[in-house]
C-alpha cells in the first residue's frame, strides 16, 4: 500500500525555491536566463544564488541543469562558477585567536 501520494505533475515548478539560502525561485532563474544571464556566475551576481552560507552546495547543480536545459549549452560552456575559500565557514574568533599580531601594528598604508 502506498502512503501519502503526491501528484508531481501538479506541483508548480516555477514556485520551487532553487536556492534556499537566498530564497530564489526557479521562476526568477528562468526569467533571467531568458534575458541573457545564461552563465552561473551572472545569475549569481544578479540574484545571489551560490553566495549563501552553503556557498552553492544546495543550488549549483539544479541551476546549472536549468541553464543547460533552456540554452542547449553543455556544462562546460556554462561554467561552474568560481569556488572560493574557506571551504567551510569559519568563525572570525577562531582565526583571530590563531593570529598573534596586533592588527594595527605595521599595517599603515604607504600613502
Amino acid at each position, binding site marked *: 500500500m502506498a502512503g501519502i501520494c503526491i501528484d508531481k505533475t501538479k506541483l508548480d515548478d516555477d514556485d520551487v525555491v532553487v536556492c534556499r539560502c537566498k530564497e530564489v525561485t526557479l521562476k526568477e532563474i528562468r526569467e533571467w536566463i531568458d534575458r541573457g544571464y545564461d552563465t552561473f*556566475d551572472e545569475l549569481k*551576481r544578479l540574484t545571489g544564488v551560490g553566495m549563501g552560507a552553503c556557498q552553492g552546495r544546495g543550488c549549483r547543480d539544479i541551476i546549472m541543469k536549468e541553464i543547460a536545459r533552456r540554452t542547449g549549452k553543455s556544462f562546460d560552456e556554462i561554467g561552474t562558477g*568560481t569556488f572560493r575559500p*574557506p571551504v567551510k565557514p569559519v568563525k*572570525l*574568533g577562531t582565526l*583571530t585567536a590563531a593570529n598573534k599580531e596586533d592588527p*594595527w601594528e*605595521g599595517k*599603515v598604508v604607504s600613502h
Partner: protein
Amino acid sequence: MAWKNADVVVIGGGVQGCASAYNLAKLGVKKVILIEKNSICSGSTGRCGAGIRAQWGTEMNCRFGLACLDIFENLEEELGMSVGLNQGGYLMVAYKESEFDQLKANIKLQNSLGIRSGVVTREEAYTICPGLSADDALGFTFHQRDGHADPFLTTFAYMEAAKRLGVEFLKFTEVTAIKVEKGRVKTVVTDKGEIDTAVVLNTAGGFFQDVAAMVDLELPIHSENHDIMVTEPVEPGVCPPMLMSFSGNYYLQQRPDGTIVGGCSPIGHPMDSDLRSRFAFLEHMSSVFTKLLPRAKDIRIVRQWAGLYNMSPDCQPILGEAEHVKGFFLSGAYSGHGFMFAPITGKLMAQLITRGNTDMPIHMLHYRRFAEGKLIIEPAVV
C-alpha cells in the same frame, strides 16, 4: 569585410563600460557596441567593496563624490532597476594625531562645497555603529549620505537600460588589437571578428594599460591585488556605516542582507596582480573585524576573494583622449574608487566623446599630467 561596424566601441563590461555605454546611447549615439572578454561584471567591479562617499580631501574628488551621490539617489528611477543603494554613511576612524588633523581639514573643505559631513564624538560614533569598539581611536568623522550600492545590480541596471537604448553587448569576446590609420582609430580586432569604428573607449579595468598599449600608448600604470572577505548574514545593526581608516588600513560594512564585507590594502603596494586567495589575509582581517566589532567573534566567514586595483602614480583616474590617436578615449586607473565614480565619469566620458567638452572639468585627469609633473595629491585615498 568587417564583421560589424559601430559608432563607438566600448572595451570592458565593468561598471565604467556599462555606465559609459548607457550615457553614450542616451546622448544619441546610434550604434554602440560593448565588448567583454568574460561575462559582464567579472572584473574589478564584481569584486569590489562598492563603497560610495563624498568625504574626500581635494575639491575635484569632493565634487565628483557629491555628483555621484546625487545620481545614485535617483539611479533606480533613471535606470528602471534597483541598484541596492544603502546610505548608512561612512564613519572615518583616525588613530593618529596627523591623520585626525587631515580628516578635520577635509571636513572643512567638504562643508565649503555643500557636503554636510562633520566630526563626531566617540559616543556619537558608538550610536552610529552600535557594535563598534574603538577606544584607541583619536577621532571620527561622518557623512550620512555616503554608503554603498550593489556593484552587480548597478552594472546590470546600466546594461539593461543601455540595451533598451539599442546598445549591443558582446560577451566572451576579447579585443586583441586595434588598427590605427593616419592617426585615427580604424578597426577593433576581436577573437570573433573585426569591428570598424572611428571611436574606441578603453574601460578595461585591470587591463587598462594593456588595451592602451594596443595603440602604442605606454602608461605608467600597474594593477595590484586587493583581498576582501564576507561573513554569513547576521542581525542588522551590527555595523550600519562603512567603517574606514587610513592608518588602520581597513574598510568594513554590513550590507542590507546582513552579511559583513571588509578588506584592506596590501602593505607597501607590492605590484602583485596574483588573484589567488591568501590565508594570511583571512587571519589578519579576522583580527581587524573582532578588534573593531568584538561581539562579531562568533560570526562565520563564508568567502574570500580578490580583485585588481588599477593604479596610477597619484592613485587618480586617467580620463581623456589619446594625444597621438584620434578617437581613442581612456577611462581607467581608478585605484580604489572606480565603482563610486562611475555614474559621473560614465556621463562625462560620453559628453567628451559626443560634444568634445564636459559639464565638469576633467582636463587635469589627462595622462599628460604625469609627464608635466602635475600629480593630484589626494589625502583621502586608499
